[in-house]
């Protein structure tokens, strides 16, 4: 499936600039995510991937440029961005360790108040990640890394976002668990959630996504359908481990 057809642009980042003091983290980044798509942004450490996510969420100040959701500008306050329909599963998972799994998921649904659909969505998240249901009353801090990642994704889904942002969902996880989680991400997408993810694990990200962008020291240097990026010699050399996979792996 190729997302650049005639579908509507859901999330659009236009000429985004972000600095930390004198250090420029993003210099004029633009990207589009179409409705129903999975888009990945790949790049090495320090390219500005997390900054991009945090700027969309208004966790860092957008110095210049705008972010639009369905044509409307995203607010400059995080809680309003969530209410508008964007939620983030942050880098390093950031689950609330002293709260139970259920309480973490309820936190994700915070802006929805007493919405009666919250319980349905809870069941939906449990159907995606049955492991979470098994551990419903357990403190999040006692979960394994993979389970915490599932919880972080489930928590972000509880906000019923129009666009789900994922910051390094594979970070620090065993390959077999990464495969499980990415399989669930595809299923989440099939159930109608548009996804924008940033990843250092470029191969996994591009295998999952429809289109990809390459971010390098604050600039978007390349974009295209994921298969093309996967096949691109430069990208292979820079992000996919030198073009050919080491023996015994692949």
């Amino acid at each position: 499936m190729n997302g650049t057809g005639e579908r509507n642009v859901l999330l659009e980042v236009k000429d985004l600039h972000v600095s930390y003091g004198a250090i420029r983290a993003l210099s004029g980044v633009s990207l589009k995510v179409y409705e129903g798509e999975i888009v990945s942004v790949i790049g090495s450490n320090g390219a500005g991937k997390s900054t991009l996510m945090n700027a969309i969420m208004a966790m860092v100040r957008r110095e210049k440029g705008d972010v639009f959701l369905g044509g409307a500008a995203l607010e400059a306050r995080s809680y309003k961005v969530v209410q508008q329909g964007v939620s983030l599963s942050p880098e390093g998972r950031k689950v609330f360790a002293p709260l139970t799994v259920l309480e973490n998921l309820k936190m994700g649904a915070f802006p929805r108040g007493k919405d009666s659909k919250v319980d349905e969505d809870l069941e939906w998240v449990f159907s995606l990640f049955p492991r979470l249901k098994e551990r419903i009353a357990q403190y999040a801090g006692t979960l394994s890394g993979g389970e915490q990642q599932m919880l972080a994704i489930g928590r972000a889904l509880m906000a019923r976002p129009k666009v789900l942002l994922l910051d390094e969902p594979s970070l620090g996880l065993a390959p077999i668990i990464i495969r499980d989680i990415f399989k669930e991400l595809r299923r989440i997408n099939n159930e109608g959630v548009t996804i924008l993810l940033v990843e250092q694990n470029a191969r996994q990200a591009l295998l999952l996504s429809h289109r990809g962008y390459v971010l390098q020291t604050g600039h978007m240097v390349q974009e295209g359908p994921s298969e093309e990026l996967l096949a691109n010699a430069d990208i292979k050399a820079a992000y996919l481990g030198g073009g050919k996979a080491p023996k015994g792996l692949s």
Partner: protein
Amino acid sequence: MATLIQQVINGLSLGSVYALIAVGYSLVYSILLFSNFAHGGFLVIGGYICYGTLRTFGTGIWMSGALALAGAGLAAVLTERLAYRPIRERTNVTLYLLIASMGMSIVIENIFVIVAGGRFRALPPVIPTAPVNLMGLATTSAFDLLSLVSAVVFLGALQLFLSKTRWGLAIRAAAYDLRTAGLMGVNVNLLISIVFFVAGALAAVGGIFLSVRYTLYPQLGAITIKAFVAAVIGGLGSLPGAVVGSLILGLAEMLTAGFISSQMRDLVVFSMLVITLLVKPTGLFGKSVSEKV
């Protein structure tokens, strides 16, 4: 034996008042990670509102108490808006907040020195202080029992609020990670205002009981130092810790006063602080630094 029981009741009563103050202080600490030295000011504001309305309007203790709680709560919210929020929005360094809170503490104290004067004032006798005989075992005052019961009621209400409500859940989440709580769609500034309101109102309850116990004066807030010590012994940022630490401290004070000497009270209190910091710096219930990542 009778003395022991009596001192234990007195100790629990005093400790429960410390707990009201320590819990609010700890709550603020758990969210913003700084020691709010203006916390004693909220207690004084509550005391003076109670005193003022009782004296000038002749309202009953329930009305005056409610006004004191609301007034101190709002004063706490206002303090945060005026003094802390501008700093919070510019920097993550909590030391500046600490210094600002010391400033606010001096400001509040001196407002009362100027407006109400520095003299000691006794609250009208609205809270009974008559001696009560406990089944022939010991004699204690109705005041001690009342302050113990009130503290239990208010702490229980706080516990219910934190464990059963949506905002309570958000406060617990924010106590662990304020930034991520903001990412969940929580209006962080509103959350902080709620926390300050609750802390201020609880301090006012403590303030009313302390003004009956020790009379009311602008420096009464200095007693918060005991609540700080209690919070450190219990573990900074931990609410059960603040309560347990306060009860231990109240008991230690009253038992020292009853069996050794009243002058040794503070010596015992601060020795306990030093010992805690030497033996278990995180306190009884404190968060250990290493969390599974």
